């Protein structure tokens, strides 16, 4: 999904990284079904957010917009708080055919958009067609590339001859089918992502107006239009067909820079996430409300396997074994936990300790390096410039390599604007710091995009047909549960071949004033469950 570095590079509020204390979100059960003690309904609270790039779900790929959509849309699937597995939300059922190619999606009847229009199968199909249509220029267009007919809507030259994906068919007002080009067992997990939101007819009449005041089908609706750079205010949607939220009104004021923290300390905003620069202070001063959870971010040191010097896997393993991740994270990157798998802990299929080369073993590392034939010359460690905390951490890594492996290491900060040109363009001259945030909670989303031959983020240049085969096998599994052991084999392959060195898992932390309770992370997603927050009512 969105590059973690976008957050880090801007050093802005919502950058997250912390040590996980408890596992999963504390809410138990699936989102929205926590039963409340009487009196917990009602009230208004505020949550520090930032200015979104767009309020059209299919055209937004950042956290501030997603947080708004979390409250104003209910999509086909949501994710279980404890396991991260997809569960039907607005959908009644999502059933694959026996060959795994066609999904029959039945939606719940009687749901309405905030403007009173009914939510129908057509609402989904029309929205997905619009996003998949190349000339609309929507950012989440590529999410539909597995649906039959996608290529016709995205020709490399000229205009498409049709505006509809041939793989989408409306059967009746509450049923539609989706036909994929190949079986994809993780498809139900994708359906909980913003790209697959339904849209009312009002959107198609005027997308620009919709962007200023989106109309969703969720428990909250827009209270007035988007006040750019100031706030987005939400209010309860009275005709919501699902479990209503607790609070009546939610304010989402926008902050840039560190001012969100000043406002929180002054008591002017009820809830905020905590960036790594304020985490230490939060742990001391706001310990009772601080909620530290693992986020979906997976940090790693990429290795340029396209560079002949790095093509020996024992060299890569040696580099991984020579680092003391825990020490660096205790002292410097306090919002991270050492990575012991290439999969985030919030994902089904994560195994603690799966990576056997991810703990410090200086003697072992030296031995591996010798077995690999040693290293001559200078090793260049690359990272994003203008981030003093990251720089300290990278200096520590360089020192550890020097001390534990006896090699010469040079640090090379690269400007954020050029960074992805180097990594995606396979031009890195040595290991580099990088990160991945998931698009949807699935073990597959941490594997195929990063290490698959045509993976959208294959920055290391890893090319292994055996791995691609495992991915295809996993994709063809009958159910998501059945697919996990196969994908885990792929994970094992990566942990052995080490095209990237697993570095850390990030954290998602929130603090709140005593004016609210039940502030929970939205399951595996890196956002708050706004509908679950309860405003503390004065006891009468």
């Amino acid at each position, binding site marked *: *999904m*969105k*590059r973690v570095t*976008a957050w880090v590079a*801007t050093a802005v509020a919502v950058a997250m990284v912390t040590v996980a204390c408890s596992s999963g979100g504390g809410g138990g059960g699936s989102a929205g079904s926590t039963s409340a003690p009487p009196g917990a309904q009602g009230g208004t609270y505020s949550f520090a957010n930032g200015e979104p*790039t*767009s309020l059209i779900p299919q055209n937004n*790929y*950042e956290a501030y917009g997603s947080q708004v959509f979390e409250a104003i849309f209910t999509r086909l699937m949501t994710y279980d708080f404890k396991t991260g597995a997809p569960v039907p939300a607005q959908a009644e059922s999502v059933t694959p055919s026996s060959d795994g190619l066609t999904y029959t999606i039945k939606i719940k009847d009687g749901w309405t958009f905030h403007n009173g229009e009914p939510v129908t199968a057509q609402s989904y199909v029309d929205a997905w067609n619009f996003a998949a249509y*190349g*000339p*609309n*220029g*929507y*950012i989440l*267009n*590529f999410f539909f*590339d597995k649906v039959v007919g996608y290529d016709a*809507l*995205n*020709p*490399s030259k000229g205009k*498409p001859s049709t505006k509809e994906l041939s793989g989408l068919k409306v059967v009746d007002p509450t049923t539609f089918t989706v036909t994929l080009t190949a079986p994809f067992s993780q498809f139900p997990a994708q359906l909980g992502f913003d790209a697959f939101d339904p849209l009312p007819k009002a959107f198609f009449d005027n997308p*620009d107006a919709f*962007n200023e005041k989106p109309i969703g089908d969720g428990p909250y609706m827009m209270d007035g239009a988007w006040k*750019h*750079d*100031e*706030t987005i205010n939400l209010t309860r949607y009275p005709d919501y067909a699902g479990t209503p939220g607790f609070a009546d009104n939610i304010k989402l*004021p*926008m*902050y*840039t*820079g*560190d*001012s*969100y923290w*000043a*406002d929180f*300390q*002054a*008591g*002017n905003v009820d809830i905020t996430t905590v960036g790594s620069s304020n985490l230490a202070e939060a742990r001391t001063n706001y310990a009772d409300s601080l909620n530290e959870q693992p986020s979906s971010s997976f940090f790693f040191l990429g290795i340029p396997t396209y560079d002949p010097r790095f093509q020996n896997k024992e060299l890569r393993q040696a580099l991984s074994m020579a680092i003391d991740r825990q020490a660096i994270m205790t002292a410097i990157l306090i919002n991270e936990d050492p990575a012991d798998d290439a999969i985030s802990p919030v994902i089904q299929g994560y195994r603690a300790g799966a990576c056997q080369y991810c703990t410090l073993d200086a003697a072992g590392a030296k031995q591996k390096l010798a077995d690999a034939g040693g290293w001559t010359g200078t090793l260049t460690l690359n990272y994003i410039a203008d981030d003093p905390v990251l720089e300290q951490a990278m200096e520590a890594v360089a020192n550890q390599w020097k001390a534990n492996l006896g090699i010469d290491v040079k640090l090379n900060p690269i*400007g*954020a*604007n*050029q960074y*992805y*040109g180097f990594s*995606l363009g396979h031009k890195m001259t040595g290991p580099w710091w990088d990160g991945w945030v998931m698009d949807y909670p699935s073990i597959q989303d941490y594997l195929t995009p990063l290490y698959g031959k045509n993976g*959208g*983020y294959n920055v290391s240049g890893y090319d292994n047909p055996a791995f691609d085969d495992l991915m295809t096998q996993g994709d063809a599994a009958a159910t998501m549960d059945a697919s996990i052991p196969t994908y885990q084999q792929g994970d094992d392959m990566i942990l052995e071949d080490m095209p990237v060195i697993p570095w850390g898992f990030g954290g998602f932390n929130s603090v709140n004033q005593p004016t609210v309770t039940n502030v929970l992370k939205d399951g595996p997603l890196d956002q708050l469950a706004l509908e679950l927050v309860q405003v503390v009512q004065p006891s009468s």
Partner: protein
Amino acid sequence: MLGTILLVFGMVFLAPGDPISRLAGNKPLSPSTIATIKERYHLDQPFVIQFFDYLKAISHGDFGATFTGRDVSDIVKERFPVTVKLALGAFAIDVVMGLALSIIAAVKRRTWIDSSILVYTLFMITIPTLVIGFVLQYVFGIKLGWLPVAGIQGGWQSYILPSLTLGLGFAASLGRLGRSDILDNMSGEHIRAAHARGLSRRRVVGHHVLKNSLVPIVTIFGLDIAYLMGGAVITETIFNLPGLGQSLIIAVRTGNGPYVVGLVMISTIIFVFTNLFVDLLCARIDPRISYE
């Protein structure tokens, strides 16, 4: 002006990094989608064509759009009032405090009052705006809770701390310059003549000295207000004020060429016009100037 536009446009254009991929979180976009976005923002054209397209557009008042589709002119219309309010607030402090410091220091020269003012102004000039801002925010906003610390939700009160942050520094500079200016004037022959004629000290200073001192002081005021109108980047960021300064940071950070150029252009225009206005004002105060 044209040179400025060319320079800024060129710098942003040449700055490395692809804004489209950043917008997409560095994820793959279909060729169709990329083609659409490029066409929409003229990113597929060579530099010269993009530049002339831009010139043509701004002559119609169309300053282009950000890469998320908002018109730069709309954004400026929204943000400019915030910057103006901050500028006026800071300017008020600049004028009132600056003049007060200058006059008191000059009149009470070589007393302990004068010395303390000199020390104070030196202190305030040296401390960076950043530090003043954070300290004020912490003391008055967080610890004492008297004033809002972020955003503009608190109405006119939201502008008090930011205005002080900016204004105190300006006032300190002005205080020192004004003081030497006034002292120079106080020793002029016409002043001794006025004293000799028996005019009260207050009238001498308030009327004769001050009037002559005003020209350089007003010139400085002019520069100050012109600078303030362009948007104070640091102060707006600390206090989360959605003004032009904050938008410049956002524009640069997202690598949005037309946005950056639009903002710089507008700031330049404001600066030039404000300066012009001040020059005219100076001419009214001191008729000698209009004959030069």
